[in-house]
């Protein structure tokens, strides 16, 4: 030690207010360098890969389906949250655990400010890692040609959730400076996520929509991010909720006597109350959410501009001479759709009411089973409208029990077309309509014998219960199908209007 060679630097100048950001930046830099969060990131990365990314690649290459697994159900949050809470608790308990509480308290800077710097570094690492992981995942999706647009609002929800986990974990560690704080916080985070998921499965509406792993609302079998924007209503409510929790937790760390002066502690109390209020208001908002055709709408947050459809230039092909146009997000399936429609369009070619073109329309959210009719025919001239978002598209399908075969998809499209063509609507239709539908499907390559099973497996219409292709309906269908093509066309041309109006009976069949 050198007493004479270097005297300590003495400063007696008043602290300049402008120096505060610089000091905070230097504290943050040191905390970022020496934070424990990077040590746990390889584990989170592995979990993210195996739990969030890989399962999603088993679904159709559309953002709305790929991200249903990992963002809609909150898997990315589950992968991060418990670990972030644990590491944050480790950092929050650091001063107490390391026996530095007295030393830190004896410094001029309010302890709360120092703690916030430690927390901020922890949160920055966690959020940055989350954004990098999700960014890499989206880049891989883009490389794989995934259609649609990423659910940025749901990324924001997850970022806020990660921040909330870090804040709650940090506060827990600050109040309980023990080596056990980290594992207990991690376990608590995991249990909270498990409870959130279970509640989400049971409660598709009401306050439970605020829970970050509740997937009801903007995901699955719909065209969010393809035909219309991802609705921000529910994400905004969840961000309010999670941010409120984060703010309240951080406010709590500023309440103890050693955290700072009276002014600062009052501010911490106000911050805590504001956080609780934000979370409470968000729960109230979510309770008023209702399912619209485009997703979950919260009246107090809803902006009508969000209902405006996304403009796009369709990709088109031809099936039996009829133009077929799809949203570019579905470009890869255009040959499948053309191939599916060609036989049934050929069957009805030249008949009145035959569609002059086929176009894809947006699928709609529905709280009821079955939902709206997936294929409709109408207008002057008639146009076939298909909501492909309601179908399991050919290829990988995460929730279908295996990949969807092209024929399986084609049969569903043909069934939807036949139901629309005979005017059966969203129900099974009358006996005569069922008979004509069966004959059309037979002509399009779907034998009578397999039709009951096909209709039973359809998720886009009630259809008859599975059973043998027998009875008066199939007898009439067989009679119609055995007619020469010209005679069948002539009969259909003469009776199509009455058939669609539901005025024909089996007795009127040839």
């Amino acid at each position, binding site marked *: 030690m050198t*007493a004479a060679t270097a*005297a300590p630097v003495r400063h007696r100048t008043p602290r300049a207010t402008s*120096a505060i950001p610089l000091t905070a930046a*230097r504290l943050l830099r040191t905390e970022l360098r020496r934070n424990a969060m990077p040590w746990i990131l390889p584990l989170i990365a592995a979990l993210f890969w195996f739990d969030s990314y890989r399962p999603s690649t088993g679904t159709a290459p559309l953002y709305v389906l790929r991200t249903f697994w990992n963002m809609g159900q909150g898997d990315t949050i589950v992968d991060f949250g418990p670990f972030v809470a644990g590491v944050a608790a480790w950092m929050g308990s650091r*001063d107490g655990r390391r026996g*530095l509480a007295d030393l830190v*308290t004896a410094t*001029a800077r309010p302890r709360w400010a120092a703690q916030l710097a430690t927390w901020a570094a922890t949160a920055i690492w966690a959020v940055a890692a989350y954004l990098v992981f999700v960014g890499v995942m989206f880049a891989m999706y883009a490389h794989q040609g995934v259609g649609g647009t990423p659910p940025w609002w749901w990324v924001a929800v997850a970022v806020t959730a990660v921040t909330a986990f870090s804040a709650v974990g940090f506060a827990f560690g600050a109040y309980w400076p023990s080596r056990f704080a980290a594992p207990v916080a991690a376990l608590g985070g995991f249990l909270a996520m498990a409870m959130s998921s279970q509640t989400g499965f049971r409660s598709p509406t009401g306050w439970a929509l605020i829970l970050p792993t509740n997937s009801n609302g903007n995901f699955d079998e719909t065209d969010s991010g393809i035909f219309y924007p991802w609705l921000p209503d529910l994400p905004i409510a969840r961000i309010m909720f999670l941010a409120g929790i984060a703010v309240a937790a951080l406010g709590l760390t500023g309440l103890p006597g050693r955290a700072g002066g*009276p002014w600062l502690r009052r501010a911490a109390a106000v911050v805590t109350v504001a956080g609780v209020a934000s979370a409470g208001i968000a729960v109230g908002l979510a309770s008023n959410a209702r399912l619209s055709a485009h997703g979950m709408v919260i009246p107090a947050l809803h902006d009508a501009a969000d209902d405006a459809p996304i403009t796009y230039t369709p990709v088109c092909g031809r099936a039996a001479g009829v133009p077929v146009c799809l949203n570019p997000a579905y470009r890869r399936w255009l040959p499948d759709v053309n191939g599916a429609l060609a036989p049934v369009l050929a069957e009805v070619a030249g008949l009145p009411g035959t569609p002059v073109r086929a176009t894809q329309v947006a699928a709609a959210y529905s709280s009821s089973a079955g939902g709206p009719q997936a294929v409709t025919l109408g207008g002057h001239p008639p146009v076939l409208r298909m909501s492909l978002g309601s179908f399991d598209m050919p290829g990988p399908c995460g929730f279908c029990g295996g990949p969807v075969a092209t024929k399986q998809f084609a049969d569903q499209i043909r069934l939807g077309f036949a139901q629309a063509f005979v005017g059966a609507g969203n129900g099974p239709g009358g006996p005569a309509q069922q008979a004509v539908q069966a004959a059309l499907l037979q002509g399009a390559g779907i034998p009578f014998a397999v039709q009951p099973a096909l209709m039973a497996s359809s998720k886009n219409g009630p259809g008859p219960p599975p059973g043998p292709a027998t009875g008066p309906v199939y007898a009439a269908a067989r009679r119609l199908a055995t007619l020469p093509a010209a005679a069948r066309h002539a009969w259909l041309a003469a009776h199509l209007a009455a058939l669609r109006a539901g005025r024909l009976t089996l007795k009127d069949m040839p």
Partner: protein
Amino acid sequence: MNVDITDLTRRFGRTQAVAGVSLQAGAGVFGLLGPNGAGKTSLLRMMATVLPPTSGRLRLLGRDPGSYGPRREIRRRLGYLPQNLGYYPGFTAAEFVEYFALLKEMPPGQVPRAVAAAIEQVSLSDKARAKLRTLSGGMLRRAGIAQAIVNGPELLLLDEPTAGLDPEQRVAFRALLRDLGQRATVIVSTHLVEDVGAACTEVALMDAGKIVFQGTPDELIARGEGTGAAGDAPLERGYSAVLAASRSATAVA
């Protein structure tokens, strides 16, 4: 007087750690001696403004630490080395000292030079970039001293500062103490009476929460002369004699 204490007490439940201590100290090195449990650490923690007194009057650097504003001003001018110094194992020695310089609200522009100077003063320059987890106990103690002096404190409180230092470092540290005592009030709590003899201009001896002796090291030595008190050195004999006298007086009372 940088330290002005009148009838200060501190209780922990039924235990009275500090019982009516009065003390004044100006610039110089002030030694605080006493056996284990005498109340030295509690007194130092009160002077470090981390432990509020139960009763009594405490003024530091002319300010009342009971109010937040003055307390913060005191803390800006305070250096404190606790008895059981913790550390952040992932920090380097320089980062550790810089961290506390920033917490002491030093002007950011002065921090790098102050950190380098403090580390040099404790002869830790060659280990400035070493992680604290890799340092020996003595080196950690020196890093702790560096953080205490980095802001050029007007009031420096050191609780067992030489614990873990090797003899060579202790000699150097005493020289540093004498130098710091030229312009600041340095209060050193220690068991090691030779530290007091070598560095302190004034000494107080505590026992059972009270100050039982206050004077110069020479006066303490004088109290031991001819008493037959135990001890290898004159200061130790003075220390033993004062304690024995205090305890016998307490027993008679």
